[in-house]
């Protein structure tokens, strides 16, 4: 067999080099560690900002989920709000009808969103243009929105779902007015999920996703089952989006129809593109930048903040986000290189 040919010479140094190359992406980079240190520091140093920070982290987690399919699987969607909204409603309904324990709500929301992802995923596998995918996913999200509006006996319709009460986290930490528990909770959930997502995108499975994104023709000819692989990441991405939605419900103790609205899906895409796709932190960084700018501008001018927001986005795009973004990365690489030397 071929093996005789292959096992002719077992070159150990080459193997080591190969191993080093394969583990390269999974290695923790200083900037990543710095990012999480900053996040942890913000919890202790900025107690006044916990409410805004919670909102940022939730949006960031939502954008991260989108990055998994856009950045890693190369499939664009404009309907990711469907999963976010479903998670939000499931968490709200769980607290009203089943249990007010937050982690149960989180788990159920995740399951529901993943199930919806599995059910609607095949629509994305149509041989179609990006535009078609965008619109099909948008259509699904809008259908869900209208359904939630119609089913007001269940969802409260346009008035919103009332009566959401969440028990203290782990039975100890009550969700306080300052948003401290909420922020801690969101931050830890996001951190854990990022770790899991990170592990997945650096696994052999994650490598195969990148291969499909870069060259689906080749991937098929290598026998990679493209459809199931994409479906799996879509469902996982939906799961995370559902958790982000559930976090929003649990920290605000309210669900309204706009969790499913078009602007939810559009904003998250904006945030992700602003932060950059395909390196997992784009969503989180984009959320920080977007929300801080928005908060700052709307404090200055509640009526016309959108103008300044638009202007900043415009300048960012025109200068080229790459150039802005690679700055820290080039710095990092330089540091890295020095560290090695």
């Amino acid at each position, binding site marked *: 067999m071929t093996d005789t040919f292959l096992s002719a010479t077992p070159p150990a140094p080459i193997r080591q080099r190969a191993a080093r190359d394969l583990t390269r992406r999974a290695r923790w980079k200083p900037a990543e560690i710095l990012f999480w240190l900053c996040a942890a520091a913000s919890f202790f140093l900025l107690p006044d900002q916990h409410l805004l920070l919670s909102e940022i982290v939730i949006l960031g987690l939502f954008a991260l989920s989108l990055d998994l399919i*856009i950045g890693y699987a190369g499939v*664009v969607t404009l309907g990711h709000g469907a999963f976010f909204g479903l998670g939000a409603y499931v968490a709200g309904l769980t607290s009203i009808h089943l249990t007010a324990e937050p982690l149960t709500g989180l788990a159920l929301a995740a399951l529901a969103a993943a199930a919806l992802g599995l059910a609607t995923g095949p*629509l994305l596998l*149509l*041989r*179609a*243009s*990006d*535009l*078609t995918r*965008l*619109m*099909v996913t*948008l*259509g*699904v999200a*809008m*259908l869900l929105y*209208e*359904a939630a*509006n119609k089913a007001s006996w269940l969802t409260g319709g346009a008035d919103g779902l009332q009566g959401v009460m969440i028990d203290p986290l782990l039975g100890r930490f009550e969700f306080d007015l300052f948003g401290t528990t909420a922020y801690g909770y969101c931050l830890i959930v996001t951190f854990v999920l990022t770790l899991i997502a990170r592990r997945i995108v650096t696994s052999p499975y994650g490598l195969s996703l990148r291969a499909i994104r870069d060259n689906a023709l080749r991937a098929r000819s290598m026998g990679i089952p493209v459809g199931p692989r994409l479906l799996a990441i879509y469902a996982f991405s939906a799961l995370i989006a559902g958790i982000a939605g559930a976090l929003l419900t649990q920290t605000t103790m309210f669900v309204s129809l706009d969790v499913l609205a*078009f*602007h939810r899906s*559009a904003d998250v*895409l*904006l945030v992700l*593109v*602003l932060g950059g*796709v395909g390196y997992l932190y784009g969503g989180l960084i984009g959320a920080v930048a977007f929300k801080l700018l928005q908060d700052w501008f709307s404090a200055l001018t509640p*009526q*016309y*903040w*959108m*103008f*300044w*927001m*638009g*202007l*900043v*986005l*415009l300048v*960012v*795009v*025109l200068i080229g*986000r790459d150039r802005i973004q690679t700055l820290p990365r080039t710095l990092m690489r330089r540091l890295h290189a020095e560290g090695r030397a």
Partner: protein
Amino acid sequence: MLTILIDGIAYGMLLFVMASGLAVTLGLMNFVNLAHGAFAMIGGYVTALTMNRMGLPFLATLPLAFLVPALVGMLAERTLYARMYRRSHLEQVLFSIALVFMAMAAADWLLGSSQMLITLPGWLQGRFEIAGIAIGRYRAFLILVCAALVIGLQLLLSRTRFGARLRAAVDDQRAARGLGINVGGIFALTFATGSGLAGLGGALGIEIMGLDPTFPLKILVYVLIVVTIGGTATLTGPFLAALIIGTADVAGKYYIPELGAFLIYLLMIVLLILRPQGLIAPAR
């Protein structure tokens, strides 16, 4: 029954005029311009302001509603859009949404956030009857104007030198340049035409859809639906799509009101599953 059909066709025609410019930029120039609605809004405001503040008659404002957005479009194309042609679609999305944000805030600042309304001239109000079918005068007017536009546009693209040059520029920029075609100029003109059409659509649509600073986002989804279902390869595709969506929406709400808002999305999903490349797919 026929009244409903005519209402639907008029609505579809209106959608087409607004969407046609997007079909051109997206299909021919391969640029995702989500700010398309902003040009429609400019056209709408031009008509509303010249009518309400300067007392121009409705018809006289329509050429202005085409020209002003076209000029703004050309200016924006030369200064901003031209830098974005080579970027990824996602960046184009970010770029054009940023423009939408700015346009919405600017409109709010300049003109206020309330609905802007116009009063049509008497001969366009009310309705008339042909063979027992009642037809709204304005809707008949819409159908006529839009039909003329559709034909004109088709002729422009297929029969004129400009159309031929545009197609050449789109097929292969480098070759077109080699033939001495001013590709940048062609693109600017095309973009201006698309923006002007959007503006005209916005002006014609005030009476039906209203006009306020959120207009660009409000029509965005409808316009995208039309372009996606129609496919970006031809103008005939979006035209058919606009008619289908227009009549289906109106008829659906009349006959099965319970499905009301669902219908348009369901229809879109089904059509896209059946024809993922659009009604009229690009030739291979």
